[in-house]
């Protein structure tokens, strides 16, 4: 009894968390390919340019290479598959998508040196936004391009458009409005049309056609981009093999035919598809059909040196960027890794001059790629070092030979075998550029299915482990030996074995692989040792109903519509769960008075009195759930949605009266919260001691509220004309939040140092009647009426030896001992709540109030249902049923949405990073913590409060017994005292207490893990889905981050309870010493 096994519990939970983290990490490394965006950009004066003798011949308006075209038209036909553009006259019965773009074929056959068709290989992910990025930056965009600014989609990297604008070209755009977000304020003139509605085939195309020819004829442009969406939308709606597709492609054909007639001699025409499509018309992944797009090049002046090859050449999509840049005479974007299309630089001259020209563009291109690789390897380590080394060697040798050759060419005499030497040098540059691109592709643009599957399996087996371990009937001692120590031992052993293998085989190895290997091995160890244990079967039927709700919740992750609508799905499921719970209790006859003979005669039953209490609670819960839906943020997928008015800060309110009213309401709400917490503590007698923590609750809480109120006042009036007070306001905006941070951390520290909120009164000194000690209670007489003294029977027993020595009868009255654990948690939750409210906009404190009320109601419903359930069939008091855990977690995700969040990046509240900090951060850590705390506020609160699910029924025991006492006065004293023990029951059996905490934690992790597993599986299975980068991948990211935050907070909450337990133990031992 003296050495409760506290550490193994925390250790075991931490180990389970580690298993999950390893799974998440492994999956993420296979699924989310990341790349770092460089902020540098190319400019005309960069020292990459060719040697001076050639430079002098650069015509005006050219950078790096002589300009060949002064104008260009880029027509992007979304999802233009190569098969759509190919024309085969031999085909007698073409499919709806075949042989429709006849104009391309006519141009290519009639003018073989003017026009050419290419296979245009897109890089995955083949989503439009990523492709536009690729087509303009010449790089391989991944899902997360770690740039300087997450808040907008705007392209931060150097790109073709930025170069064009920088060099004074007028860029006109028409079509898909995705470009508006990507290139804000870059266009000379623009005509955007909504792209969101996939069902709408014509709005964008007709809009473009309306403006295209007038714009081309007006001549007020240098580069014109037209992005047609009809073909893509037609694919999504009908699939490629449909008559609508034939119509759409014919329309495109007509458009191109008349566009060619409008072009001048100095204009380059490019027709490109950004990606292909599958048989069902989808795209996003990396299958052959999706990446196989078409590119068509045409100019009125001869462009190519020779006729077209038999089979169209295949070129990667990124090659377009350097080619277009050099043809138009602007620098190649900094991060480009594409290779110039040399045959377009051949010109009209003889073979030698053509080769020299090609060589010079290759040289520029190679120098630019080398510069990019060098600066990239300085900031990121994801490109393997030995391959970079190899590339460097290739590059330097090619450049060396190039310089040699050039000096020879310059020295008037023509070197022997010039042509073959030029040819080999060109192919060496080509080889270098292709190798470089391959290295980048390997690390940026490919899923790793084995890693994804591995991560998925690891998460699934961790879930299974949680379930098994939580059902295991265990005595802690043997359990911690067999199921914890051995796996913990096996993990490092596995890692060591892997390391040995690594030493022998010299395979690549990273920390992530090692840790997931260790996790897998230790998990196997657990299952191996678990095999011998017996565990009792839970009744399947009882499990079916909460697990059914969980099943629906997880199933909803697999549909993009349900993920989009999750803000409405979780409240629905929560309400259903609670209603089902009440319905089931009723069905089992737990709520009705057992039928006496008299009632049986009449044939009816009547409800017990408590049922009204339960029904009121349920009604309150439903109302809370419904009200919380007024705080939702919107996603762009639901266009008719309007974001809640409560999300905007008070400062943005124009109406002064409304502003003041809301401000007063918010402050009143904070004060009310403090009052409620204080009176709850007072009710249970936890506000009587004179310890530092209680003093903090009494005086520190109002102070915190005062600081928050001042901050809100200052922040919401910051824009008003305060004149000379402006400086003062600037200071105040920083000082008040920092004061709150300081006060809250002081409070949390006090809580950790001395979490006891118990007031003990020894009756030995004043050996009077039992009434006298009450006079010593701090607080007024009115308070005293609320204070319920709890006489702790066990204490008397433990004092027995002492009592036997000392002859006088003595008791110790301890106030608040029965709720000492919950009190600590409630104080911690309140402090956290203040902090998180500070990080949100003022009016979201209503949502937080709802959160606290709903959590309180949920706890009471749980207690009530338990009490009714145990009335007929007593069950273990120490196990928390599944429905309670699931409803707790449903509430957590419900309030994720109700605090104004959505699992998409633009919905993150970035301004939380600047609460208390004035636009300057030295590190990235602090803003990340602030924004993370803001985003996962409800996860944090519910996870820390999770142990309350175990404690609350014990806390509420008293009020029930009191009621009983009122009814039946003549009850035995002994039983009375037993009823009053509350949370001290837990202390009485420390083994079971720690086991119960462990089980609760495992159940919580299981439910969290099941949701995570569903997200992970959805992201893996649906990685070819249209919405994967818009819906599933962000959802997966938020869910996994939420898991990490929740599990850490859960560990903290449980450790806090353990800390209180330690303090209670030492308090008792001190008493015994006295």
């Amino acid at each position, binding site marked *: 009894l003296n050495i409760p096994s506290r550490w193994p519990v925390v250790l075991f939970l931490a180990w389970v968390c580690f298993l999950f983290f390893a799974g998440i990490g492994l999956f993420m490394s296979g699924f989310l390919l990341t790349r770092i965006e460089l902020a540098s950009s190319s400019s005309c004066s960069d020292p990459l340019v060719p040697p001076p003798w050639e430079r002098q011949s650069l015509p005006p308006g050219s950078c790096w290479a002589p300009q060949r075209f002064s104008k260009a038209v880029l027509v992007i036909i979304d999802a233009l598959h190569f098969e759509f553009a190919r024309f085969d006259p031999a085909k007698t019965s073409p499919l709806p998508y075949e042989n429709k773009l006849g104009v391309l074929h006519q141009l290519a056959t009639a003018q073989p040196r003017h026009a050419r068709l290419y296979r245009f290989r897109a890089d995955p992910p083949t989503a439009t936004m990523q492709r536009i990025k690729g087509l303009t930056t010449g790089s391989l965009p991944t899902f997360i391009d770690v740039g300087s600014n997450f808040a907008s989609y705007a392209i931060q990297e150097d790109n073709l458009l930025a170069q064009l604008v920088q060099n004074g070209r007028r860029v006109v755009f028409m079509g898909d409005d995705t470009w508006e977000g990507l290139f804000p304020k870059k266009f000379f003139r623009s005509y955007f049309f909504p792209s969101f509605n996939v069902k709408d085939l014509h709005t964008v195309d007709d809009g473009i056609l309306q403006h295209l020819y007038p714009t081309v004829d007006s001549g007020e442009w240098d580069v014109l981009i037209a992005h047609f969406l009809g073909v893509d939308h037609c694919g999504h709606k009908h699939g490629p093999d449909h008559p609508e597709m034939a119509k759409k492609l014919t329309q495109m054909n007509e458009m191109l035919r008349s566009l060619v007639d409008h072009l001048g001699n100095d204009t380059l025409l490019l027709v490109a598809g950004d990606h292909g499509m599958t048989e069902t018309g989808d795209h996003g992944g990396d299958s052959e059909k999706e990446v196989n797009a078409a590119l068509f090049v045409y100019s009125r002046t001869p462009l190519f040196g020779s006729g077209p090859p038999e089979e169209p050449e295949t070129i990667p999509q990124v090659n377009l960027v350097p080619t277009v840049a050099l043809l138009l005479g602007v620098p190649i974007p900094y991060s480009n890794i594409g290779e110039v299309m040399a045959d377009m630089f051949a010109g009209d001259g003889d073979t030698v001059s053509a080769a020299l020209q090609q060589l010079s563009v290759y040289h520029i291109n190679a120098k630019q790629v080398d510069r990019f690789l060098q600066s990239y390897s300085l900031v990121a380590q994801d490109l393997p070092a030995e391959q970079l080394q190899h590339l460097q060697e290739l590059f330097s040798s090619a450049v060396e030979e190039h310089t040699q050759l050039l000096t020879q060419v310059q020295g008037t005499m023509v070197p022997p075998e010039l042509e073959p030497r030029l040819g080999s040098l060109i192919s060496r540059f080509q080889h270098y550029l292709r190798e470089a691109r391959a290295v980048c592709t390997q690390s940026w643009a490919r899923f790793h299915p084995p890693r994804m599957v591995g991560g998925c399996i690891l998460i699934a087996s961790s879930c299974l482990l949680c379930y098994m371990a939580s059902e295991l009937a265990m005595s802690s001692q043997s359990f911690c030996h067999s199921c914890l120590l051995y796996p913990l031992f096996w993990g490092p052993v596995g890692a060591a074995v892997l390391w040995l293998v690594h030493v022998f085989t010299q395979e690549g190895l990273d920390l992530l692989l090692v840790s997931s290997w260790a996790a897998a091995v230790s998990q196997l160890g657990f299952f191996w040792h678990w095999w011998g244990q017996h565990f009792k079967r839970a009744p399947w039927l009882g499990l079916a109903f909460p697990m059914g709700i969980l099943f629906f919740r997880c199933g909803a992750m697999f549909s993009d519509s349900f993920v989009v609508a999750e803000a409405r799905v979780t409240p629905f499921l929560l309400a259903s769960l609670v209603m089902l719970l009440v319905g089931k209790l009723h069905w089992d006859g737990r709520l009705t008075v057992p039928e006496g003979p008299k009632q049986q005669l009449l044939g009816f039953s009547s409800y017990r009195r408590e049922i009204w209490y339960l029904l009121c609670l349920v009604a309150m819960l439903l109302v809370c759930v*419904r009200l919380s839906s007024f705080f939702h943020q919107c996603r762009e997928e639901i266009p008719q949605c309007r974001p809640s008015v409560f999300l905007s800060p008070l400062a943005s309110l124009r109406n002064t009266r409304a502003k003041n009213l809301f401000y007063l309401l918010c402050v009143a709400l904070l004060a009310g919260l403090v009052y409620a917490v204080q009176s709850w503590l007072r009710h249970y007698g936890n506000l009587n001691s004179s310890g530092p923590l209680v003093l903090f609750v009494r005086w520190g809480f109002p102070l915190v509220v005062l600081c928050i109120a001042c901050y809100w006042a200052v922040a919401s009036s910051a824009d008003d004309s305060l004149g000379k007070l402006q400086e003062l306001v600037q200071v105040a905006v920083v000082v008040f939040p920092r004061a709150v941070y300081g006060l809250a951390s002081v409070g949390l520290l006090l809580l950790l140092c001395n979490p006891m909120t118990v007031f003990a009164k020894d009756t030995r000194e004043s050996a009077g009647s039992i009434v006298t000690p009450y006079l010593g209670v701090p607080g007024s007489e009115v308070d005293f009426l609320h204070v319920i003294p709890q006489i702790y029977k066990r204490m008397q027993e433990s004092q027995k030896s002492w009592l036997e020595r000392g002859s006088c009868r003595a008791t110790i009255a301890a106030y608040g001992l029965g709720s000492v654990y919950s009190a600590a948690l409630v104080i911690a939750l309140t402090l956290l709540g203040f902090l998180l409210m500070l990080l949100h906009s003022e009016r979201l404190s209503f949502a937080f109030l709802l959160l606290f009320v709903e959590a309180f109601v949920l706890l009471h419903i749980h207690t009530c249902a338990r009490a009714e359930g145990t009335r007929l069939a007593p069950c273990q008091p120490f196990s928390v049923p599944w429905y309670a855990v699931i409803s707790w977690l449903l509430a957590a995700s419900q309030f994720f949405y109700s605090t104004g969040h959505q699992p998409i990046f633009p919905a993150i509240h970035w301004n939380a990073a600047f609460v208390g900090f004035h636009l300057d951060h030295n590190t990235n850590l602090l803003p990340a913590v602030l924004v993370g705390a803001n985003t996962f506020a409800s996860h944090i609160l519910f996870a820390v409060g999770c142990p309350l699910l175990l404690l609350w029924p014990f806390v509420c025991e008293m009020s029930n017994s009191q009621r009983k006492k009122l009814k039946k006065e003549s009850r035995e004293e002994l039983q009375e005292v037993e009823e009053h023990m509350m949370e001290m029951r837990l202390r009485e059996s420390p083994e079971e207490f720690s086991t119960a905490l462990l089980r609760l934690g495992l159940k919580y992790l299981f439910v969290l893990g099941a949701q995570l597993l569903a997200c992970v599986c959805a992201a893996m299975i649906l990685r070819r889905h249209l919405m994967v980068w818009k819906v599933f991948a962000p959802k997966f990211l938020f869910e996994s981050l939420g898991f990490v935050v929740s599990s850490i907070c859960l560990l903290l909450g449980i450790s806090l309870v353990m800390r209180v337990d330690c303090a209670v133990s030492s308090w008792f031992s001190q008493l015994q010493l006295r």
Partner: protein
Amino acid sequence: MREAEVRRLLGANLLRALAVILSALLPPFLLDGFSLLGTHLTWICVCSLCVATLNIVLHLVLKPNQSPKRRSFAHKISRFLKCCIYFFMSCILFHAIIVLYGAPLIELVTETFLFAVLLSTFTTLQCLCLLGPNIQAWIRVFSKNGAMSIWESSLQITSMCSILGAWFGAFPIPLDWDRPWQVWPISCSLGATFGYMAGLIIAPLWIHWNRKQLTYKSR
């Protein structure tokens, strides 16, 4: 005796199901521009009316729970009024619950209320017919061993199936299929109707299969 009663129940239930089907099939011939999805509210009214009248008629004809005592006329009137009040209250209650489950609060009030009426017709009205305005009897029927006759078992099953159908009917609403039946409250009311009809079919079959286990307490 038991077999005969089950057969009567089956007949009555089939009649009810037929009424629901006819309420969708007949009105196009009588009303201009009627369609199940297009003029959904009209259909809800028609369906509720049909089911309600049929229930009342069946109740009067079959008399599943004849009370031995003869009641006065005034008593019958007060009983009828009470029934009406109960029905209205149940509509309000259903409306409140539907709104709490996430239905729009201010917009589409008529739709929500008519859906509540439909649900009440499928559940409360049957209770009223069978058990009268006697809440305690209702409480008894909807618990584990509370049913005292096959009529009450059938009542249990059909009511639960209707509610369950309405619950499942909410599932397709968020999907982006753009179908006319995804509009509030069409999918839910259709779900409730299908649930009700399924319950009507299931109830006699279930009773027939479990006739050995079912032992009703005699009064």
